């Protein structure tokens, strides 16, 4: 078998893997701080893509770099609003079923809003992050490289935020014990709002980065959303390094699997892996006991 093909598969798998990793981080931080699994997270990503491509690039013709900043700002505000209006009330529900329903319907509302505002016709952003590099015999797409670099930057920034800043420390405090955090003078609700806003920003980043990979439509993120869930569990649920390991291993394995099994079944890898891991090692690859 051609070694170059394998390396190319690994590189593009790594890029997708980072996308899954970001997806699982984006819902893990919400889960850690509110105890809710955000089933509308793929819709957040979709909204991010639409705000960037549909609103700023296509309708308003803004320069891409400016559009990125504008999208991030928009999504920050969006995150705060959603957190105040939906997540904080749902957090106090007696049964997790209600919270699941709440986020599912939030997702539907977002889909409908996107359809009403930007239309249901799929579209693309021509020329955005297109092109390839050639290193020796190996061809790497530009978007893969950008995803890998940008993801590492986002992860580093998040790590810095959580470990070094006061806000981040407060977030970790809220994750571990809300009552104690409140007694320490941390405003738990505000803190959760902020966490969700950060999650929304990561969603926006994912949405922007996957535009060259898929056509932009209302279900752009369904698949990566579900695989992101799988990634989180495979690595170790609720544990950020686990999310990264899980995401990357799914991305690479999935791409390499096309060498052996029909490409059509490539998508089964993530779920098959998920179920196997859950049955033999529910605490995930990194085995982080909580």
């Amino acid at each position, binding site marked *: 078998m051609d070694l170059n093909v394998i390396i190319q598969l690994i590189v593009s798998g790594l890029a997708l893997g980072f996308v899954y990793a970001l997806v699982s981080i984006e819902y893990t931080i919400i889960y850690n701080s509110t105890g809710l699994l955000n089933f509308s997270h793929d819709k957040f990503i979709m909204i991010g893509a639409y705000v960037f491509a549909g609103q700023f690039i296509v309708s308003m013709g803004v320069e891409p770099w400016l559009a990125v900043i504008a999208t991030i700002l928009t999504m920050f505000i969006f995150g705060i609003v959603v957190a105040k209006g939906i997540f904080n009330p749902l957090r106090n529900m007696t049964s997790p*079923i209600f919270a699941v*329903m*709440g986020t*599912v319907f939030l997702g539907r509302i977002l889909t409908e809003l996107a359809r009403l505002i930007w239309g249901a016709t799929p579209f693309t952003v021509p020329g955005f992050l297109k092109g390839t590099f050639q290193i020796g015999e190996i061809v790497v797409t530009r978007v893969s490289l950008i995803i890998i670099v940008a993801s590492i930057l986002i992860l580093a920034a998040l790590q810095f935020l959580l470990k070094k800043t006061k806000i981040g420390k407060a977030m970790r405090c809220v994750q571990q014990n809300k009552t104690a955090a409140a007694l320490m003078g941390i405003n738990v609700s505000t803190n959760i709002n902020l966490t969700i806003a950060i999650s929304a920003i990561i969603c926006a980043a994912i949405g922007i980065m996957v535009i060259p990979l898929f056509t932009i439509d209302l279900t752009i993120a369904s698949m990566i959303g579900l695989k992101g869930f799988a990634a989180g569990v495979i690595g170790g649920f609720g544990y950020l390094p686990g999310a990264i390991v899980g995401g990357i291993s799914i991305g690479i394995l999935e791409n390499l699997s096309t060498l052996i099994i029909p490409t059509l079944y490539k998508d089964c890898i993530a779920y*098959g892996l998920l*179920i196997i891991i859950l049955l033999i090692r529910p605490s995930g690859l990194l085995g982080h006991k909580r």
Partner: protein
Amino acid sequence: MKHKNWNIVKRIGITLFILILCIFPLVDTNSYHHIILNQTLVNVVVVLGLNFITGLTGQMNLGTAGIMAFGAYSSALVSTKLGFPVLVGLLVAIVIGYLLGRVLGFPSLRLKGVYLSLTTIGFSEITRLIITNWTTLTGGTMGLQNIPSISLFGYVLDSSTKVYYFYLFIVIVLCFTASRIIKSKWGRVFKAIRDNIDAVEASGIDVAKTKILAFTLATILGCLGGAMYAHMMNYVNPTTFTQDLSANFLAMMMLGGIGTVPGNIIGSSMVTILPELLRFLENYYWLIFSIIALLFAIFLPNGIVSLFTGDRRLGRFWITKTKKGESSHE
């Protein structure tokens, strides 16, 4: 004394309701309405099943679409490819449901909460991917066409009205059965597992077996519902059985009221029929419906049934706040 009167009122109410359902198609002959009613009946069957595992036992099952797909395709394949009568197909769906319950119930012994919901999502997605891609057996994205209608000993149910009466009969029987199970010791034990699993084990009850039992009820009814769907539409297609469908069934269960048969019926009807009633809103109808459902989830978490049983908690935010206040005083 009061109790007895109430029972009589309840019985009269149920009889009247069934009577209205029997007469309805004679009064309203619009066949589109009949199709929607049939759809509602199918949904009731599936929701009754989901209610056992998620509503009563509290095990988060988000794989209903996959379960239904199993039932729909198995019955459809038995009657198209193997040429058996449809009733055999329905029976096969029930048997498949029974086996599926054993298999799917197994992970629920080790996993709970989020893990279980993700496992069931995984199961559902794998099912969908397989029926999408195994083109030779399932027809791939084209789906299975020309699925025969149900025939009862030679009498073919070829119009939606005829199907309606048959399904209505099935649903009535199932509703009474489900209601009896809920009120029996089994229903109680399911609820007990949801409330406090450690105590259940300390009472000498085999929790593993009970959970699998609840799962099996869910999968049998889910598969039966799927098969009923296939023979009603005469056509199945993998794009029906997405994650959205699973979420819809959860919504039906929740909006009506968790754990009760009337709640399941109300919820299924509401989620199936309300969007049709809102069609006059044209482009906005699905948005409005979703907003209504979200508001229900936040403000009436115990479902519509709770309006009548007095179990509602409308001012819940306020209540949780005072509760917190109380505990800090203690």
